[in-house]
């Protein structure tokens, strides 16, 4: 069957700043992979490149072979040497993306935003005229229910709370029924219960439908719980790729702490990740 995602010697430079440096990565079909790394390490950039929304550098400076900067998804090329593939559109319909900044259309209602997820796989004329069937709308409602948002269906996207917007973005991606799902910090603004539900949903579609999932996460606990495999980025390079269980506190300390300015790392890190058992350690006494 081949791999779901295959990235070869990919680099991405913004002006002088190199956000990704010679990244190679293969994700097999049906895998669920967590993407971790400090803020600014290139997680979002990698996801945008894989979905073909951004183009990589023309020549992967660090790569010798001719296949510098090649990305394939589901066996079809996305981009190669900074050149987007022509039939990328068909491929995009098969890749769902949940954006870190939600990327909803503010002036449309929540339901409309979600039902737009279906655009890639209905006849073009119908999508263009916005003639969605009742069935499609009900599917959108179902997706909203999954993320606990069906009661807000008529509200405008711009008036939703932060976490509600994030769940709307997730619902749109679910609606798309894609074969590969790229989720960029989908639970950042969610409360623990909503976050758990979202992660469980993803784990289930991964397990039951064989959807390949790459999800970037800041809360390592979720990565460990839901993703068998973790890829860690530091300053645009892959520094770890292996089973999540093998992640050690000391590696995590190094991962998040060594990022130049990120300063010293103390015990609290593992505390923050692995839970606070001892609230008595509170650093400040209440003044009230």
């Amino acid at each position: 069957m081949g791999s779901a995602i295959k990235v070869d010697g990919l680099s991405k430079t913004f002006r002088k700043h190199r956000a990704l440096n010679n990244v190679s990565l293969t994700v097999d079909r049906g895998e669920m992979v967590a993407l971790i790394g400090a803020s600014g390490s290139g997680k979002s950039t990698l996801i945008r490149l894989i979905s073909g929304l951004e183009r990589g550098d023309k020549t992967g400076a660090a790569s010798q072979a001719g296949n510098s900067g090649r990305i394939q998804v589901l066996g079809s090329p996305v981009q190669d040497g900074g050149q987007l593939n022509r039939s990328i559109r068909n491929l995009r319909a098969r890749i769902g993306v949940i954006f870190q900044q939600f990327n909803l259309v503010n002036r449309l209602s929540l339901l409309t935003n979600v039902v737009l997820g279906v655009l890639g796989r209905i006849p073009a004329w119908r999508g263009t005229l916005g003639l969605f069937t009742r069935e499609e709308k009900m599917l959108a409602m179902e997706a909203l229910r999954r993320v606990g948002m069906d009661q807000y269906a008529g509200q405008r996207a711009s008036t939703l709370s932060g976490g509600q917007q994030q769940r709307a973005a997730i619902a749109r991606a679910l609606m798309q029924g894609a074969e590969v799902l790229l989720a960029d910090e989908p639970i950042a603004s969610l409360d623990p219960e909503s976050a758990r539900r979202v992660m469980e949903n993803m784990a289930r579609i991964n397990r039951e439908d064989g959807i390949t999932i790459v999800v970037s996460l800041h809360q390592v606990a979720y990565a460990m719980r839901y993703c068998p495999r973790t890829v860690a980025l530091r300053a645009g390079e892959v520094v770890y790729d292996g089973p999540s269980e093998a992640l050690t506190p000391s590696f995590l300390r190094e991962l998040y702490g060594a990022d130049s300015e990120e300063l010293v790392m103390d015990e609290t890190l593992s505390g923050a990740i692995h839970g606070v058992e001892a609230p008595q350690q509170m650093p400040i006494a209440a003044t009230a």
Partner: protein
Amino acid sequence: MTDITQHNGRQSGQFGTPGGESKSLELPPRDLKRSVTSLLGWGLFFLVLMWSWEGAEMRPLDLFIYAGNMSEFAAGFFPPDFHEWPTFLEQMLITVQIAVWGTVLSVICAIPCGVLSAENVAPWWIVQPMRRLMDAARAINEMVFAMLFVVAVGLGPFAGVLALWIHTTGILAKLFSEAVEAIDPRPVEGIRATGAGKVQEVIFGVIPQVMPLWISYSLYRFESNVRSATVLGIVGAGGIGVVLWEYIRGFYYAETAAVIIIIIATVTVLDLISQRLRKMVL
């Protein structure tokens, strides 16, 4: 590549367990008042269109039947006669000079007036009078302003500058204010929360957002001021628009074509400058 049924099939799996525990879903109710309003609005609009069809004596077919006439008329413009190009150039420069001042002055006035006409920045008791003032500045014919200034400063380019100034201020203030009303409010709130004053909110929160549009409007008006013939004709200031007018009136079509080409070239240059400037701030 992918087909719907297949996807739908997968999807019902993806959304899992239809029926059973899930409570029944309902599409959000339509906002009845809104639907009715918009239906009425569209109905009215089409009625106006139909009523205007009569008044405007629309006979679209004529356009095709007599297309021959048009091509014959248009043929008269070729080949363009650039014989008098030094005059064209000189007049073009005059118009540019007048338009530069007319536009710069009006941009300067339109910035405060535009901001004060924006409902999301100023309170209504400033917005309403200001908008009405700007309505008047646009609505009062340029010819009236032209003559008003002629009696003060005499015939010549300066009267033209002044007339353009008032009229353009009215237009730019409207466009500026409506760009301001369409901004994202969040950055402004960010600035407001620091305890910044109103003016500072505008300078740091609003203007960076509307800058590309404002540049575009200003250069559009500059361009149309360069083309303007009426005002400059009345005040005897000359300029390319007036030359063009005279040529057309005299059936000098070859020269007309030449002038038009020069104007197109100028407009194109201004359009490219506009593109470049906006890209710098975008």
